[in-house]
C-alpha cells in the first residue's frame, strides 16, 4: 500500500514579500495600477516592498521619484482622480511632515469635497516603528495621528497573510488607504526577525477586509488589544500568562481607521478586562480611543479599570538603554496584566 500524499505544503512569506507579491498580482490583473516612490524601482524599496516589480512591469509603471514627496503624492492624487490606481511609498512615516497637506487635506477630502464625483483610490504605504536605534525622526508610529483625520483608511498587518490580503483590499478600495508596515516585522533580516510574522499566504487571490479586527488568541480573563508589532508582544505575554493560569484573549486590530469597535467591545464584554498595547505616543492615542470606546458602551461591565501601554510622550530617544526603557514589550504587558487581575471590582 503506497503512503498517502503529504498534505499540501503551506507557503510561507515574510511581510515584505507578501506586500510585493500583492502589488505584483494586482498590477498584472489591473493595468491602471502603478507604483512610485523613492528607491522603489531598481532597489525594490528600502524595505523590500517592491522587490522584482521593475523587472516585471518596467519603468513606466514602477517609478523612482525625486525626494519630492509633496509633488509625487500630489501627483498620485491626480492620477487617482483620473481613474488610475496609484500606490505610493512614503519611505518612513516620519517624513509625513514634508507632505501632509497632500495626504490629509487633498487625498482624504477629494471624495467629500466633490460630493462623491471624484474618488481617490490611492494606497500610501509607509514604514513605521523603531527599536533599532534610528532615533526620533526615523522610529515613529503615528497610528493615532493618521487614524484621527477623516477621509482615509489606515491599516497595519502583523503577519504576512494579513499583509497580502490587506494590500489587495487596499488597492481595490476606492478610498485613500494608508498601509503601514512595521519595520521590525518586515522580515528583512537586517532589522531582526519576528518569526511569528512569517506566515502562510496563499498564492492566489484573497482579501483581508479593511475595518475588521481579528481575534488571534482566544481567552476568558482579559482582552489584550494590539496592532503590528505589539500583537507579538501581546501573544508572547499571553503565553507567559497562560503558564500562570491566566487566559488572555488577544485582538489584532489590523485596521486603525475605521476602528472595529464591534469586535473589541464583544471581546471585552466577554472577558471584562481590557489592556491596550501599542508603540505610538501615549496621549490622545490608540489606547485612549479603544478604552473610551469600551467605556462608553453601556452593555459592558468592567471587572478592573483598563490599562494602556504605549510609548511615552517624548521623542524616541537614540541610545538603546533609553529607547528600550520606553518602548512597550512583552514583559510590560505581563506586568500590566498582573495588575489587571489583582484589581477586581
Amino acid at each position, binding site marked *: 500500500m503506497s503512503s498517502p500524499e503529504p498534505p499540501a505544503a503551506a507557503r510561507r512569506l515574510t511581510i515584505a514579500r507578501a506586500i510585493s507579491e500583492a502589488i505584483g498580482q494586482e498590477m498584472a490583473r489591473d493595468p491602471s495600477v502603478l507604483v512610485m516612490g*523613492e*528607491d522603489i*524601482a*531598481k*532597489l525594490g524599496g*528600502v524595505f523590500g516592498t517592491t522587490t522584482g516589480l521593475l523587472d516585471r512591469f518596467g519603468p513606466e509603471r514602477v517609478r*523612482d*521619484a*525625486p*525626494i*519630492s*514627496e*509633496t*509633488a509625487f503624492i500630489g501627483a498620485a492624487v491626480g492620477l487617482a482622480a483620473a481613474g488610475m490606481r496609484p500606490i505610493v511609498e512614503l519611505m518612513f512615516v*516620519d*517624513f509625513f*511632515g*514634508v507632505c501632509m497637506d497632500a495626504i490629509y487635506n487633498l487625498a482624504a477630502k477629494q471624495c467629500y469635497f466633490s460630493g462623491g464625483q471624484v474618488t481617490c483610490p490611492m494606497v500610501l504605504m509607509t514604514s513605521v516603528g523603531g*527599536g*533599532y*536605534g*534610528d*532615533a*526620533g*525622526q*526615523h522610529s515613529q508610529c503615528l497610528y493615532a495621528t493618521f487614524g484621527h483625520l477623516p477621509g482615509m483608511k489606515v491599516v497595519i498587518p502583523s503577519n504576512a497573510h494579513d499583509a497580502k490580503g490587506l494590500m489587495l483590499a487596499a488597492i481595490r478600495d476606492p478610498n485613500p488607504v494608508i498601509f503601514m508596515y512595521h519595520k521590525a516585522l518586515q522580515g528583512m*533580516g*537586517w*532589522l*531582526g526577525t519576528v518569526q511569528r510574522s512569517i506566515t502562510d499566504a496563499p498564492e492566489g487571490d484573497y482579501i483581508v477586509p479593511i475595518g475588521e479586527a481579528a481575534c488571534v488568541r482566544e481567552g476568558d480573563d482579559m482582552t489584550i488589544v494590539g496592532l503590528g508589532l505589539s500583537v507579538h508582544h501581546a501573544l508572547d505575554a499571553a503565553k507567559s500568562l497562560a503558564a500562570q493560569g491566566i487566559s488572555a484573549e488577544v485582538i489584532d486590530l489590523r485596521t486603525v481607521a475605521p476602528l472595529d469597535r464591534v469586535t473589541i467591545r464583544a471581546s471585552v464584554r466577554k472577558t471584562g478586562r481590557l489592556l491596550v498595547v501599542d508603540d505610538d505616543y501615549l496621549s490622545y492615542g490608540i489606547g485612549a480611543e479603544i478604552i473610551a470606546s469600551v467605556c462608553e458602551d453601556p452593555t459592558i461591565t468592567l471587572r478592573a479599570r483598563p490599562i494602556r501601554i504605549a510609548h*511615552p*510622550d*517624548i*521623542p524616541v*530617544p*537614540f*541610545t*538603546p*538603554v*533609553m*529607547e*528600550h*526603557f*520606553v518602548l512597550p514589550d512583552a514583559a510590560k504587558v505581563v506586568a500590566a496584566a498582573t495588575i489587571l487581575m489583582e484589581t477586581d471590582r
Partner: protein
Amino acid sequence: MTRSGNRNDRLWMYATMVKSRHFEALIKPAYFEGKTPVFNMAKGPLPGEMHLSDGQEPCAVGVCAHLTAGDTVTATHRPHHIAIAKGVDLNGMAAEIFGKATGLSGGRGGHMHLFDARVNFACSGIVAQGLGPAVGAALAAKLRGEPHVAVAFLGEGAANQGAFHEALNLASVWRVPVVFVIEDNGYGISVSKRACTAIARNADRAAAYGMPGHFVAGNDPDAIYAVAGATIARARRDEGPSLIEIETYRLEGHFIGDAEGYRPGGEVDGLKAIDPIPLYRARLLADGFDAADLDAVEVEARNLVAAAFAAARAAAYPEPQEAFTHVFA
C-alpha cells in the same frame, strides 16, 4: 584651480580632512561590532543607521575654513565631516554617536541629530530640514547687526524637496547672510542625480531665486575654499545669499551596509583612485609644504580622534530615566 589660499588655512584644511577621515575609519569597524554574522541594525555599540562622509571632506573644510564659532552651520544625515570642520566638540560628538551620557545630547539624538550650541552647529535626518533654520539664523545675525553668517549644507537630492524652493526664495526676499552649499555626490540612496533632477546643474537654479550660483568641479579643497570665501564675504557685507554646488563623491554607500548595487561596476574603485586627501597632500608638498609638518598634523589629528573614541567607549550610558528630561526646557 587656485592655490593661493592662506597657508595656515591650507594646513588646517589638510589636518581637518585627515581628522575627519580617521574619525570615519574608526566608526566603520565599531559599527560592525556585534552586527555579525547576520547584519542586524539594532545590535552593537552603534545601533541604527550610519552615513559616512569619506570623500566629501573637501566640502566641509573648504567652507568652514572661513567660519567662526559665531557663524551657524546646519547639516544633514551625513554630518561628521562638517561637524568636525565646524569645531564641534570631538569628545562629545563621539560619545553622542556611541549613545553615552557624556554625548552632546546625553544620547538622546545620536549620529543624525548632533547639536553643539557653542559653535552653532546642528544637523537633522529629514532632507532639506536645515535650510529654513539657516535662513533664520542668518536673519537673527542681520537683525542684531552681527557680522555672522549661516551656512546650510544639503545633498543634491534635497534640491528637489519643497523646502529648498521656499528657503532660497525667502533668503533672497529678505536678503539674509546665508550660503547654501550643495554636496553633489551623484546619488540619493540608489537613484542617481541624473534620474531625478530636471537640469544638469543645481547651481543654475540660483537664478530662479535671485542669487548667484557657483559650480565647483573636482572635489578640490582649494577651489571650494576660493568660492566659499567669496560667497561668505559677500554675505558678511550684507549683499545677500548665494548657492554653491560642489561636485564631490562618497566613497562609501549611502548608509553602511548599503550593497551599492546601483553603482556601475568599477565606479567606486575609480573614485578611490582620486581620493581627495592623498591628492591634497601631494599638492601641498608640490607647493612647498614640509612633509614633516604634514606628518605632524596627521599624527595630532589621529591622536585627537583616537582619544575621543577611547573616551566615548569608556563613558557610561545614561540612566534610562534620563529619556524623560529635556523634552521641555
